[in-house]
């Protein structure tokens, strides 16, 4: 008796977005993400779009109270974000850099918008890979900082944000005018995720310029909530919920290393934090993550190999 594989067909497709743009002479690469018509890695069901891309996070300030495994690796470059980013892109294979502008926080260094924007442009120029720029989390300050970043890096198709339903107009408008993309963030909530996406559509931001951040919970700290929300969002999108038919970004490194379990464990052999980070990422890849932001180079490498294996290639551990 012949066996016929049941194929799950969905009527809709996740929008395809392009991050990064070349400028004459510097040979900058760009990335395409999204485009799936099926659930992640189920390529036998139909076109599964672009493979997820793995980037690394860089901070504009030296993080306080770093766990030893991170300090050991980044210690020599942590004071120099451009050098740190260059290492990520050139030594550790980051496909994109995620620059977190913590230092802009008025409670921290209160770095000026101009300084932040110059740093973003320097990172772009030094690495040659696409750039994600995150604000400091203070709405008022982020509005001026990210606007300046947008202007200074005009035309380079950076992914800028996050924007939320309470604060999106200034950043989204600046991003649109200067040819960037925005991160639409919701607090692990499918209804609020839809809300911010509808508001951005209403403002005129095209589907090809939005990436969703459903907010990452690290392993043991809400990972299952993030997973459920992402899965719900992706299924709804494939079934016709067009405002949610967008790629998703997750911040695995940042969230995983906040867990006390990541900072403890045996000091020899496999670093527990690396496993914690890689497991967080591996899980969210199954939920539909299109862009994964990592911290530790070894976790980054493991996740990259994992993606390769899921896509049908050989995995090297």
């Amino acid at each position: 008796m012949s066996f016929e594989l049941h194929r799950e067909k969905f009527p809709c497709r996740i929008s395809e977005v392009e991050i990064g743009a070349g400028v004459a002479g510097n040979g900058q690469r760009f990335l395409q993400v999204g485009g799936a018509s099926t659930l992640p890695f189920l390529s036998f069901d139909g076109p599964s779009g672009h493979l997820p891309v793995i980037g690394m996070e860089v901070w504009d300030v030296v993080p306080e109270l770093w766990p030893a495994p991170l300090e050991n690796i980044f210690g020599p470059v942590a004071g120099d974000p451009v050098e740190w980013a260059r290492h990520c892109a050139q030594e550790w294979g980051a496909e994109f850099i995620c620059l977190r502008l913590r230092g802009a926080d008025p409670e921290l260094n209160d770095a000026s918008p101009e300084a932040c924007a110059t740093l973003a442009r320097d990172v772009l120029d030094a690495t040659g890979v696409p750039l994600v720029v995150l604000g400091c989390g203070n709405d008022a300050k982020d509005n001026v900082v990210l606007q300046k970043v947008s202007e200074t890096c005009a035309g380079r198709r950076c992914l800028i944000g996050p924007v939320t339903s309470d604060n999106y107009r200034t950043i989204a408008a600046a991003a649109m005018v200067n040819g960037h993309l925005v991160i639409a963030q919701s607090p692990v909530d499918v209804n609020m995720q839809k809300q911010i996406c509808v508001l951005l559509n209403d403002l005129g931001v095209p589907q090809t310029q939005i990436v969703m951040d459903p907010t990452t919970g690290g392993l043991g700290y809400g990972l299952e909530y993030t997973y459920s929300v992402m899965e719900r969002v992706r299924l709804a999108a494939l079934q016709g919920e067009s405002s949610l038919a967008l790629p998703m970004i997750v911040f695995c490194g940042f969230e995983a290393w906040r867990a006390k379990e990541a900072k403890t464990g045996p000091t020899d052999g496999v670093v527990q934090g690396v496993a914690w980070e890689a497991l967080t990422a591996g899980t969210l890849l199954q939920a539909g993550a299109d862009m994964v932001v990592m911290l530790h180079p070894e976790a980054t490498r493991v996740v990259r190999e994992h993606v390769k294996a899921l896509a049908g290639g050989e995995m090297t551990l």
Partner: protein
Amino acid sequence: MILIGERINGLFRDVAEAIQAKNPEPIQRLAVTQTEAGATYLDINTGPAVADPATVMPWLVKTVEEVVDTPLCIDAAKLPAIEAGLKAVTKSRPIINSTIAEREQLEKYLTMARDYGAYLIALTMNRRGVSRDAADRLAMAMEIVVTADELGFSVSDLFIDPLVLPVNVGQEHAVEVLETIRQIKTLADPPPRTVVGLSNVSQGCPHRLLLNRTFVSMAMGSGLDAAIADVFDTQLVETVAAGRVLLNKEIYSDAFLQSVKKRSPK
């Protein structure tokens, strides 16, 4: 819920005049404004007055497709006009509107729909006329489903119209229609879809919009999939949007009304 805009119909004087004068402008304006108002399909009917509907229909299709990407519902009383319309469609998969549940006619329309890759609206009426109650309507719906299945036409591409009558003429029909909509879903798996000509319910009545809005939410609650309706009634479109959220067909967001409005024509 699929909202099929009813306005491009030769029964309306502005459309009849535009057809007469071969003036595309009023028709294109209706195509754009209905789409912006929330129509997911546009019904296209030459009206009874034109001499040769099979020539006018392709012109209407072309005129509308020039300005919108919204899929069309090709509406005519005779098969040649429908076929001419289907031939002219270049964009999305159209709906054929409609056939009665008389074996010979059903076969012709189902074959045509299958060959052109179109959806088909089939009415639960035959040469003897409209059914009296839900049981009658369901018997005809069953005939439609069985014939479709025999001819290899996908049952989920069928839209069965249980025929809504004006409430001032046949008050007892509304409740029978609601029951029919519920029961049609049990006829096959996957089930056929259902459609109503919504404005019919209030034909010749005062407070038409109120009757339409009330009936659409009742019918949605019974499982209605589509309505040919007056999408210029903003509150009707908003009622449908709220209904979709309450029936868990669409993910809730505080901006749930924004997400149905401002559809762009292209």
